[in-house]
């Protein structure tokens, strides 16, 4: 049904925009015109580059703090490592609202965020005698490296680990994993950090002659699909699966109890892409929408706010909430799915109509 509706819309868009040079729009408060090219540039600089810079910085800090912790293990230093892990996690989860490009095609996502942890092999690694150098860690299975094995080591199975409980092998493995995570996030950052090369260039030069995005419309569709995609993943995967099966073992960040924060950051990521704001604010989808359709702009913002509020209404740790706060959890799923519908059924046709 959607197919038969969309085709005429797409064709209509072709007809009516074929002679437009570029859409222009005023930003929210000023009357400075914003072009579609500026919006793509704004995304690359203010979201992708900024978010991955932050992620690389935070994983670097995590690695440094783990070094400090390893040198003289104290509970205070362990807490500092845990906070650093959460901070890095915040940046990563926000970036999940734009999971396209090298993060996906270069297989970086599975190497830093595979779930679940392979406990059996992880314990075997710790019990074994291998030297945990960079090459060895790099060659490990994805389920033995990245955020979640680090989380497992920092918090322990029940989240109650103390500094004194760390074995020498755990210290060694933890540090090697943090180096690996730092390197992979740095690699990810380099794919977006230079305007004149890499995916930054690929994305911002969308249009004729670009193999990946032969039109600007394709790049705009990519943004909206990415936003809608993370909503679907959070509502129906990350929250929906453990909730439907009433199985807390399916929770994504169980040792740190960070799952609800993960979800909130995913929604913040959607908001970031729409507003064009991470560290700094710039040209974004919002500007294009506000030029033509204030009602749609209000609707997108209301739905984002509603999704965030619904997540805030879940007050227990996620693993408990799926059994003890089922109404709140279901409301969160519904609110996030409602946002996905607005993105897919309203924002998508909008960008298809207003880009070439």
């Amino acid at each position, binding site marked *: *049904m*959607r*197919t*038969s509706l*969309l*085709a005429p819309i*797409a*064709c209509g868009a*072709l*007809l*009516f925009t*074929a*002679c437009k040079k570029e859409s222009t729009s005023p930003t929210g408060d000023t009357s400075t015109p914003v072009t579609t090219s500026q919006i793509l540039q704004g995304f690359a600089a203010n979201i992708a580059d900024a978010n991955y810079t932050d992620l690389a910085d935070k994983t670097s800090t995590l690695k440094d703090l783990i070094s400090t912790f390893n040198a003289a293990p104290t509970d205070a230093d362990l807490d500092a490592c845990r906070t650093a892990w959460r901070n890095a996690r915040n940046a990563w989860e926000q970036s999940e609202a734009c999971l*396209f*490009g*090298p993060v*996906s*095609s*270069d*297989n970086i996502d*599975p190497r830093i965020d*595979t*779930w*679940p*942890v*392979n*406990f*059996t*092999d992880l314990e*075997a*690694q710790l019990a*074994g005698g291998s030297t945990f150098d960079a090459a060895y860690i790099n060659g490990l*299975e*994805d*389920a033995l490296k990245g955020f979640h094995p680090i989380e497992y080591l920092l918090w322990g199975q029940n989240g109650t680990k103390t500094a004194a409980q760390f074995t020498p092998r755990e210290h060694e493995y933890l540090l090697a994993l943090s180096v690996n995570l730092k390197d992979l996030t740095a690699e990810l950052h380099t794919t977006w950090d230079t305007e004149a090369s890499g995916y930054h260039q690929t994305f911002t030069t969308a249009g004729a002659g670009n*193999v*990946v*995005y*032969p*039109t600007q419309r*394709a790049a705009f*569709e*990519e943004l909206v*699909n*990415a936003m809608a*995609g993370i909503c679907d993943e959070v509502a*129906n*995967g990350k929250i929906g*699966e453990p909730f439907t099966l009433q199985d807390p*073992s*399916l929770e994504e960040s169980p040792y740190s109890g960070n799952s609800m924060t993960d979800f909130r950051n995913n929604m913040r990521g959607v908001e970031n892409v729409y507003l064009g704001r991470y560290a700094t604010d710039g040209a974004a989808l919002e500007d294009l929408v506000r030029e033509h359709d204030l009602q749609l702009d209000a609707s997108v913002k209301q739905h984002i706010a509603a999704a965030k509020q619904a997540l805030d209404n879940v007050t227990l740790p996620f693993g408990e909430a799926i059994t003890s706060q089922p109404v709140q959890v279901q409301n969160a799923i519904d609110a996030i799915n409602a946002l996905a519908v607005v993105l897919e059924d309203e924002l998508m046709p909008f960008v298809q109509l207003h880009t070439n």
Partner: protein
Amino acid sequence: MMRVRGPGMRAVRWMLVGTVVTLLSACVKEPAPWDDTPNNDVWFAGGTQTVFDQGSGAYSQAFPGLTAAELAIHGTGDMAFEATFVSAPSPVNPGLGPIFNSVSCANCHIADGRGRPPVPGEQPVSTLIRISVPGSDAHGGPTPVPGFGGQLQHRSIFGTTPEALVNTNYLEEPSTFADGTTYSLRRPAITLSAAYTPLPVDLMMSTRLAPPVFGLGLLEAIPEVDVRALADPGDADGDGISGRANNVWDHLDQRYTLGRFGWKAGQPTLLQQSAGAYVEDMGITSFLFPQESSAGQPQHDGTNDEPEVSDSLLYAVAFYVRTLAVPARRAIDDPQVVRGQELFVNAGCDRCHVPEHRTGVNVAFPSVSNQRIFPYTDLLLHDMGPELADGRPEFDADGTEWRTPALWGIGLSQTVNGHQYFLHDGRARDLSEAILWHGGEAETSRERFRTMTASERAALLAFLASL
């Protein structure tokens, strides 16, 4: 496929265009009429199961219009497709290995798309190697290698030895187009090392790249009789192109039937394809293949936890790939694309990459029923010449034959997967190289391409990019 429209239709079309031109008279350039193609249906590569997504998620969309219940099964299969398996025992997704090629479906079929070949010095990440010795098994399939089976598992869980490691190298072979433009093809040289026990001297190997998994439900729905009707095993029409059906063993129905899936059409159904990948690629057993790939080998852990994937989950995964939609074509009315399509036909590419099919009527599953689709394949085996030959038979497919792969969606490869590695082992680095590797029955077509002018080649490639 090229259907001539009646004059009545044409008149209506020009009236429409006239209106548009009047409306947009300020435009310098007249926009292309929206139906400036012989047939509008060709935009809808997957019939009504076409999606208008040209981004990195283009291969990952569900059929439009699935019922809520069907969408739930698709979603369950989607989760299972992405699920990472780990060593047993584990509370979540246990059962990996003990020997395997990958830890999840999605790890090779990245974004439901194509895997990539290893770079020299790297172990395979989304390719695998099928192995056998001469002869055939009880059902006419390849004979497993004693101590190794029919597929080489180059990875293992901790404490277990993989069957062997894979060493990949490429040899550059420079050549020229007829107009003097140079190109270079790279020929893979694959060797095995560190085998846990000696490999037989008569070992046959075939490298396989993980292919895209969208649109397969529609290919599964093409009536067997229609596929067989395209076959011309003795080349009776003398056009130099034979086309043979593979006949393979269906483990569920316990009978021989048409092979449709895999690089040599060795699998008859998506259910069997999925179950086969579970057990061989990941070491995950199912009701269809309850025996571990390592059975009878020292790597086998001897545990009795089969099947490791439940029947319902296996059916859900098969349903997931069955209901992945096909991306719509793009830029069909671009003059270069139109020209490229003519060249594609003139060069005879469409003799094997048959553009159009009609799926059978299926009252039980209306989504794939009676669809006009444009996959650009005949699902048949063709001799592709000695350059591409793997020398390893698979049921009725001999060592030089490959099944025509579908071309739909191929223009989005760079967007979805970030690379353009094509053919069964990913040796081709773009579509031009993929064409230039064609030999055997496709040699004439390849030569037509090689002798084209630069602008003709560009047009042909622009046409492929629009698929």
